[in-house]
């Protein structure tokens, strides 16, 4: 017989946990749910737009009644759980029925805090918490005129804005001198207040309410200073309180909420609790992102997979008032140990503040233009050292040298037909509709459903902003905690760490040791694991060709029609009449349709059939040419200018150093493609400052540059250091490549990698400490000692023959 899971509470936290559980263990339990409200599960944080008339209740439903049926979940709709018998393991509803459980999940959420003022129980005093509250407000707005909102926090302002949109005169009463003091500092709060006043809200700041007056219904609100204002309704929005009365009553340990451990268990080990009703590590939460993280961990333990710990959430806040962009996260007040970085442009209505300690972002407040909120939030959660771009950080990510999407930052104001994802042609309307219709909450979900941001990723910030705008928050986990793929909860970093620590040397060993959910992984993790193992155990690991993308199996780039390209190496962009003759001969012999001079200073032949590849390669091998790896996550090309050998401006032998760099590094597998260049003087004809590693020759030696990118997001390199000799250039290059190989995530180019870990860190490893540098370089040489066999020659000699011949031909 199946075990029984009873859930008390039909809100976002409880149902998200059930959804996560159904995903990983659909048949583990018979599930029943007690839900006090007479609805399915809806997105509570979107009640504000409902009140403002921008959305309907139907649009914010997450799980309708059919969903419960489809998943065989018994929903006790409109039934309040009133008792738990922990010995007999039953839950009793207010209809008198007792329901048995093997495991119990409490997700009773929180309720609005009503200040017990005289008159607080008069008809017309409303909280702002559920659909019923919104209904009473909407009803009141039809006939009544004056509304008073007590509370100038997030909820109060959203309620006030909603009522104003419904045509009421709204006064906001706030006991503090500035609005949203828990999310905003004073300058941002003042800008917000001015903006809301312009829209027609009135504010009574620093006002202490004494009583609510009225005869049988609300008529007035009176303050301690004796003044009064007229009120037909009073919305009390001063805060929320975790609902834990039921848990406390039956002896489950509670403090300010139901106390849970990192696996979301209460002091009774068969009773779990998630959401706003819990207290975890001394904290209670009133936002959605933590609920989602808790749900995931809790579901995992309910499914008895026993992995994952909830370690608390760093939260961010966004006000859901159309036309007002506001973002805050972390510690934005600071203290004597922190510094403030501030940008303020009042006439444009833009304000940004970052609180920084030892060059680590501690918190941020943004008003007016919040497109970079996600970026700051990521920097904060990943504790990135910002010293290298501190001088421009307030101008946003676009000023890190990337040309990105420029000014297209006000997603709210964009037309539905505006194209967001240029790769896949996805418009704003498509994305918003998918988010609403398919109930999407995360970037990955949006990518799966719409393909937006799924190719080059340059629109990721815009898509994230759209998600936040449409469902009201940022639900992503901190990047360094993101699971590698759907097969595991482990992040890239933790997988690499475990491979090293536990000496895992095969893919099945990794999957076994780290508890993979799938027997043979997925394309995402197989390619990454194959690389990580190869990088960690270069002389031992046997490459798994079935875990490589076709280009790396066929050693050519697959084209849209299924043919391949062949691009032989031309060392440092140098060639000879013999090589050119070989290229011409092959092109004629195999009727090559397209011969193209590539951006990496070599010649590509396009349109070759897969079966022809070994024969083509043989011709090239015979002419002394090898694979250019133009198809791989590997060293691609080293672009050069002719340098001092010919150029009147040349300062060093840039071609020579280019060839040596290419000889050093060809054949090495990398997290992503890797390009180099060497220019003979600062005029930089080889464009070394948009390469992964660039050398600019100067009179006194060589400048080394790292982390450039000429692709999706143009990014100029960061200056690493200057060195005197060619030997040093080669050693630094080897060490830098090895550090990148060992540290970056699979499919992470050097540009985003450096932005993530900070140039500072790279200097620490490669420049500041000569011993470390030599160790990295040494490890690179070891890896290269087994990597520099021409893959073309191996196949010409008969390797992997099955790859290039059909299984059978059936004709006639």
């Amino acid at each position, binding site marked *: 017989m199946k075990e029984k899971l009873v859930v008390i509470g039909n809100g976002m936290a409880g149902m998200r946990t059930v959804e996560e559980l159904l995903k990983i263990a659909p048949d583990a339990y018979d599930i029943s749910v007690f839900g006090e409200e007479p609805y399915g599960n809806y997105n509570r944080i979107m009640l504000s737009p409902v009140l403002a008339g921008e959305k309907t209740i139907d649009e914010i439903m997450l799980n309708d009644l059919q969903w419960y049926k489809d998943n065989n979940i018994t929903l006790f709709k409109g039934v309040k759980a009133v008792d738990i018998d922990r010995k007999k393991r039953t839950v009793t509803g207010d209809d008198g029925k007792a329901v048995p459980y093997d495991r119990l999940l409490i997700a009773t959420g929180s309720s609005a805090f009503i200040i017990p003022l005289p008159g607080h129980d008069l008809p017309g005093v409303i909280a702002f918490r559920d659909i019923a509250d919104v209904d009473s407000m909407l009803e009141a707005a039809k006939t009544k005129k004056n509304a008073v909102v007590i509370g100038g926090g997030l909820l109060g302002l959203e309620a006030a804005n909603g009522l104003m949109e419904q045509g009421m005169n709204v006064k906001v009463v706030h006991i503090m001198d500035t609005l949203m003091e828990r999310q905003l500092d004073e300058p941002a709060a003042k800008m917000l207040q001015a903006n809301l006043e312009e829209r027609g809200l009135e504010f009574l700041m620093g006002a202490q309410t004494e009583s609510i007056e009225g005869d049988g219904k609300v008529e007035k609100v009176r303050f301690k200073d004796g003044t009064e204002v007229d009120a037909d309704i009073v919305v009390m929005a001063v805060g929320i309180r975790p609902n834990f009365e039921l848990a406390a009553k039956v002896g489950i340990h509670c403090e300010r909420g139901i106390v849970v451990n990192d696996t979301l268990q209460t002091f009774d080990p068969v009773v779990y609790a998630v959401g706003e009703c819990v207290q975890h590590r001394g904290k209670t939460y009133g936002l959605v992102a933590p609920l989602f993280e808790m749900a995931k961990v809790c579901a995992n333990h309910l499914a008895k997979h026993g992995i994952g710990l909830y370690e608390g959430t760093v939260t961010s806040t966004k006000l859901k008032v159309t036309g007002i962009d506001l973002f805050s996260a972390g510690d934005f007040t600071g203290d004597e140990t922190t510094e403030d970085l501030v940008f303020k442009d009042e006439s444009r209505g833009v304000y940004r503040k970052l609180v920084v300690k030892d060059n680590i972002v501690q918190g941020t407040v943004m008003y007016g233009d919040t497109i970079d909120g996600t970026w700051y939030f990521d920097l904060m959660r990943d504790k990135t050292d910002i010293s290298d771009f501190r001088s421009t950080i307030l101008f946003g990510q676009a000023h890190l040298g990337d040309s990105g999407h420029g000014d297209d930052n006000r997603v709210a104001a964009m037309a539905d037909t505006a194209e967001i994802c240029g790769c896949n042609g996805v418009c704003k309307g498509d994305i918003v509709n998918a988010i609403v219709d398919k109930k999407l909450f995360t970037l990955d979900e949006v990518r799966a459903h719409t393909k937006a941001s799924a190719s080059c990723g340059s629109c990721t910030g815009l898509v994230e902003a759209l998600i936040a705008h449409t469902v009201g928050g940022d639900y992503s986990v901190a990047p360094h905690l993101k699971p590698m793929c759907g097969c595991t909860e482990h992040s890239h970093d933790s997988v690499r760490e475990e491979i090293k620590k536990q000496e895992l040397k095969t893919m099945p060993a990794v999957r076994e040791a780290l508890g993979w959910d*799938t027997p*043979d992984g997925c*394309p995402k993790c197989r390619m990454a694991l194959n690389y990580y193992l190869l990088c960690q155990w270069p002389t031992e690991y046997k490459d798994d060709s*079935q875990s490589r993308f*076709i280009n790396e199996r066929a050693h050519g780039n697959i084209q849209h029609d299924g043919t391949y390209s062949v691009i032989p190496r031309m060392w440092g962009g140098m060639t000879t009449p013999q090589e050119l003759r070989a290229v011409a001969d092959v092109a004629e012999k195999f009727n090559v349709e397209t011969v193209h001079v590539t951006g990496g200073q070599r010649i590509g032949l396009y349109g070759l059939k897969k079966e022809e590849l070994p024969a083509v390669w043989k011709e090239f091998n015979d002419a002394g040419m090898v694979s250019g790896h133009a198809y791989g996550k590997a060293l691609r090309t080293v672009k050069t200018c002719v340098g001092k050998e010919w150029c009147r401006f040349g300062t060093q032998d840039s071609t020579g150093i280019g060839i040596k760099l290419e000889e050093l590094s060809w054949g090495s597998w990398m997290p992503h493609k890797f390009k180099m260049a060497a220019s003979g003087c600062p005029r930089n004809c080889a464009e070394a400052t948009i390469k992964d590693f660039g050398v600019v020759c100067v009179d006194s030696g060589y400048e080394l540059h790292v982390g450039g990118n000429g692709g999706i997001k143009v990014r100029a390199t960061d200056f690493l250091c200057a060195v005197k000799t060619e030997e040093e250039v080669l050693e630094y290059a080897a060490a830098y490549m090895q550090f990148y190989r060992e540290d970056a995530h699979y499919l992470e180019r050097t540009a985003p990698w450096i932005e993530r870990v900070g140039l500072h860190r790279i200097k620490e490893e490669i420049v500041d400490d000569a011993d470390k540098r030599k160790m990295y370089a040494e490890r690179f040489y070891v890896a290269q000692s087994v990597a520099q066999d021409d893959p073309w020659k191996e196949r010409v000699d008969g390797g992997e023959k099955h790859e290039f011949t059909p299984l*059978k031909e*059936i*004709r006639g």
Partner: protein
Amino acid sequence: MSNWIEVGSLNDIPKLGARVVRTDKGDIAVFRTADDEIFAIKDECPHKKGQLSQGIVYGKKVACPLHNWNINLDSGEAVAPDEGCAATYPIKMDGDKIMLSMTPNDGCPNN
């Protein structure tokens, strides 16, 4: 009635890999999973005709090399949220021999 044609033996196909059978009506991809199950599907992704035989095989699925659609090997159906279907062909083992029928199964369009 299926006409079974021998197309090779199990060891001709790498585990978690595929090989192609060339026919006058187009290529058929023959897949082998980790536990030696075999499947035959028209070698054309329902999305933009990518060669599924060139994709990465995992579980009972293959990821198309062109745009990473995932196709179920047993049904030929794309994994949601993508929608589409590639024709499947009857295939079986006879001892070590792989036997293929050129008459596609019902269910997916085969044009």
